[in-house]
């Protein structure tokens, strides 16, 4: 029997009375690209935080290639090959674009190799022009790219992207979609996004979260036609 890349079972976290993630069973196969959608407050970012160790689950487990990583610390999970671009950008603001990527690459590699890998990713993401700019002074869309580049420089095997296209121009959104498909040739991704155009560009299978629980998980075309999905996005029906 093949072991999935990522599997959560009964994954739950409560903040006081709020159950932000509720008994989620989620399975991702090797090299899969999954989109995760859901209205504001559905628990998508919290789910990512549970996967990356930024939060500890109240109940349930996370398995990465069969290994239980529930409750492990962020750096331990990162070392197992999970990389994340968070919703609120997490970058090294006072450092240059180049240094941001270098720090990521340096974790696995020698300084010289890290420099080469940094240059390669700068070229791939077309960031060479701004390589020596301080990240704190860049526009939001560019900071998103820097963070994606930083994640890539860490060479993870599973990449989580929380709203990668937010704040980008139409042209940048298309480039991001292309990039995700390019990355997916060799690695698995889970992408959270609100932009349905963007989802249509990249998605095969979509998982919908609603009030912390999985509402539906199916092929993109069927999910977007589903009446329940429309209802939760319009904010009626299921809440009752």
């Amino acid at each position, binding site marked *: 029997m093949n072991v999935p890349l990522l599997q959560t079972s009964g994954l739950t976290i409560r903040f006081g009375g709020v159950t932000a993630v509720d008994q989620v069973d989620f399975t991702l196969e090797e090299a899969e690209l999954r989109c995760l959608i859901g209205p504001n407050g559905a628990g998508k970012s919290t789910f990512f935080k549970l996967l990356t160790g*930024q939060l500890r689950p109240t109940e349930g487990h996370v398995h990465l290639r069969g290994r239980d990583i529930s409750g492990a*610390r962020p750096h331990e999970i*990162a070392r197992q090959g999970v990389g994340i671009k968070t919703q609120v950008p997490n970058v090294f603001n006072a450092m240059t674009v180049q240094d941001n990527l270098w720090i990521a690459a340096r974790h696995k590699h020698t300084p010289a190799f890290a420099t080469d890998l940094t240059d390669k990713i700068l070229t791939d993401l077309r960031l060479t022009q701004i390589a020596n700019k301080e990240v704190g002074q860049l526009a939001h869309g560019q900071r998103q790219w820097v963070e994606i580049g930083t994640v890539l420089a860490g060479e993870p095997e599973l990449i989580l992207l929380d709203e990668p296209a937010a704040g980008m121009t139409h042209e940048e959104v298309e480039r991001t979609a292309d990039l995700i498909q390019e990355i997916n040739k060799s690695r698995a991704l889970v992408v959270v996004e609100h932009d349905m155009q963007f989802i249509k560009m990249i998605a095969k299978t979509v998982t919908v979260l609603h009030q912390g629980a999985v509402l539906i998980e199916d092929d993109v075309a069927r999910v977007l036609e589903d009446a329940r999905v429309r209802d939760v996005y319009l904010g009626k029906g299921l809440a009752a």
Partner: protein
Amino acid sequence: MHQLNGMTGALIGSAIVAIAILTAPLYVDLFQIMQLTVFAAMAVLALSLGFIWGYGGILCFGQTSFFGLGAYAYAVAAINFGDSTPAIALAILIPVIFAALLGYFMIYGGISDVYLGVITLTVSLILFNLVNSTAGDFYKIGDARLGGFNGIPGVPTFNLPGNSGYILSPEQAWMVTGIALILVYLGLRVLIASSFGRIIIAIRENETRAALLGYDPRIYKLITFMIGGAIAGFAGALYVNWGAFVSPTIFALGLSAQIIIWVIIGGRGTLIGPVIGCLLLQWLVTEIGAQQALDANFILGAILIVFVLLVPKGIAPTLRDLVMARLARDKPMTADTTTVKVKT
């Protein structure tokens, strides 16, 4: 590449200062040499906080704990051994061990930055009270009586390594202290330019991001804290060597506050800044003290307020920005923007 250029500049600057230090006894009188010696010892202490706060993002309110422990370790060891070389080693080792234990509980215990400040301050006060209450014959380590609030007088000063009969003259002690300051400065420059240095700066910038890339922020912070303890302890030995005396006031609140003021005024996030801040303010306090017309603490407070309001980045970063702006204006097309990143 730009870091290399910055390093060359630091080396040239250090060489010039080293020559000035070595030749100073030729044109400066003994009283001033003594004064410069204590200034330099304090500047080493300023570097210790400038490093852990400016680069490691750790605001330690009790850097005097390590300074004082280093000073006492030196005094006790020098009295017992009659030789300063192993005493200097202990003045570094004991504060490092103390920093490792204290840092481990604070950093691995996951307390917030604010509480770290409070705890380190409290620890320095505890040490003050502890050492203050060691008067009497009962409290002695080997031949060294701790002496409570009276302190330990007559501490042997530095001798030539391997020759405890050759005691350094005040001029030689000055050269040793001045060169020690330069070596600590250059050592920290090298450290900051290394992978370790770049990683601790990254952790200072965004601890979450660093952890999500696989770095354990705790071990990096702990090592940074211990390096700060080592340098502060070494400064303690330099300080005792200057006065041949140590007392519990070395742990007192006033000095803890002063170190922070030196760093703020000189410029956090640089190494030269804390040195400049320390030398400048010590000189000022000495001048004011000589005049006896004004209260030194009052002036210090006023200067701090003026800086926080008008020069919030501190002297060194502000000067650097001015120079860079000037260069960029003079040759707008050819200006090498990468040099803006050079940290002093």
